[in-house]
């Protein structure tokens, strides 16, 4: 059997259950409510149909005019950016410390950071909500020592905390593995020629770990952007992240077309991030071609 035939089934699966939905979804937002979209349309309380073949942007106009959507969009972008930055800083600090010292404390730090991987996200999010509630650990400790800590659950910062918690393991694993691939000889060589430790990190280790860092940033960004569980469990009723509003608009308010507009907005945001990922991998491919 040819390799192409063997490799095709998952590609076909993705084509049918990712490619087709995305395309008919985009068509739906432009007013094409018939065809594969017709059953969703009959279940909807309201749709903005195209007149004949002329697409309409009425659904976009309606969604973008909605103040709830505007608030949600701001929260989504804010949470995504803060989480990506925080996760990168934390993961780098942990992985770098472990790589440079090689001691038990470094191993302990990365071991702890990977724990959320072992816990279903529904559970993690629920536990975090209780922990930062007005009767939770943080506020209780504050009360005991006389500091007024804010209640983070049901507020946007709580969502960021939940997202960092959930995203950290993947980031630490990838960046650690990237740093492990930097040969000791290179670091020693830099140090022998007079580079300080900080300089060795900056000029040798960071450039050699660009690809894993970009992978972490893109996966974290796209993951956070489209998440439902963490903002649903920890976030406020409104404004919350688009993932929650999207689900409610689709399932509870029965406005699949409006939900699809929000989905397309997320797709566009993610497309920018995805381009970065492909660029990083292409760069890696070139580098390894040179090395070979």
């Amino acid at each position, binding site marked *: 059997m040819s390799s192409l035939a063997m490799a095709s*089934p998952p590609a076909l699966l993705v084509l049918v259950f990712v490619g087709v*939905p*995305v395309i008919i979804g985009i068509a739906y937002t432009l007013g094409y409510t018939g065809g594969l979209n017709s059953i969703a349309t009959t279940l909807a309380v309201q749709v903005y149909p195209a007149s004949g073949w002329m697409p309409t942007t009425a659904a976009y106009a309606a969604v973008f005019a909605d103040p709830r959507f505007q608030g949600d969009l701001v929260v989504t972008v804010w949470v995504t950016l803060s989480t990506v930055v925080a996760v990168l800083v934390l993961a780098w600090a942990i992985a770098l410390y472990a790589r440079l010292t090689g001691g038990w404390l470094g191993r302990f730090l990365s071991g702890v950071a990977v724990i959320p991987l*072992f816990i279903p*996200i529904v559970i993690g999010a629920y536990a975090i909500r*209780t922990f930062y509630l007005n*009767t939770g650990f943080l506020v209780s400790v504050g009360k005991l020592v006389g500091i007024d800590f804010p209640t983070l659950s049901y507020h946007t910062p709580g969502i960021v905390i939940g997202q960092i918690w959930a995203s950290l393991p993947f980031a630490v*694993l990838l960046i650690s593995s990237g740093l492990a691939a930097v040969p000791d000889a290179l670091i020693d060589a830099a140090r022998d020629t007079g580079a300080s430790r900080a300089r060795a990190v900056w000029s040798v280790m960071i450039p050699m770990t660009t690809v894993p860092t970009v992978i972490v940033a893109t996966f974290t960004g796209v993951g956070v952007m489209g998440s439902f569980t963490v903002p649903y469990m920890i976030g406020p009723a409104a404004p919350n992240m688009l993932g929650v509003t999207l689900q409610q608009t689709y*399932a509870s308010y029965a406005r699949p077309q409006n939900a699809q507009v929000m989905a397309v907005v997320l797709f566009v945001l993610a497309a920018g991030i995805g381009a970065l990922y492909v660029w990083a991998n292409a760069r890696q491919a070139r580098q390894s071609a040179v090395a070979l």
Partner: protein
Amino acid sequence: MTGTLPIEPAALETAPEPADTPPRPRRTLGSIITRAVAGFFAILLLVFILGPLLWMAIAAFAKRWKYPNMLPQAWTLDWWGRVLGGADLLPALWLSVKFAVLATLLACVICLPAAYALGRANFPGRRVILLGLFATNAFPKMGLFTSIATLFYAMQLMNTQLGVIIVQMLGTVVTMTWIPAAAFASVSPSLIEAARDAGAGKLRVFFQITMRLAAPGIAVAVILAFLACFDEAQGTYLIGAPTYLTMPTKMYQLVTNYPQQAAAVFALVLCVPSVLLLLLVRRHVMGGHLAEGFQLK
């Protein structure tokens, strides 16, 4: 440690080691400070990561727990009896296991041959397929799920078991293809050639060399895929609820309708399979199989 004296390490390495003076006094001070900072950071990280889980675990045994106490005033095991003996747990658990097993098996059948081809051969279209599979991860999940739901309405898969299985399986495609592909790719061609030269048939080489060497990577992928299905909540909720409620989707309801202690017990029970299975493959996941699987080659 602070890096203010660039000449220091080189000088130390060339200098003959004095027998009884402690070497590098500056570095000792620096390393003590670094360690203290790292230690403080470790405690913060420990509270950040484990604190919520511990807090929830304590709640599962609480009879009365009044703010702002660090521990409950009265303890009980009643909630365990109620949840474990209740009518909610077993059907949800059974559904979760059934969906996750079927979705993982289906993913094996569809993805493993592909992983073998992608890992061992170079053919036109290979890169397109690798990148195309990544499309499942390139779309923000909730946006993708509502798009799928619209298609599922048309295909009459909404609120069906097959619909849930497909959605769960979609989440495993990248894991089940990329990680085994990396494992197959790392089997050295010279080993295979040697086996062929020694007279082993194609099938024998495949089962006794290729499969055996790739097995750890495949096992990691299968276990990660199973857990991803078992823990999948967002898509399962949109496609399956309210007809098919698995354990994670049941959690969405529990947290609003149940007493906190009952939800905590349910949550702890739900953690058991994940923790056990991941401990099994912990060494491999930490050892880089996961990381390797995320880089296109």
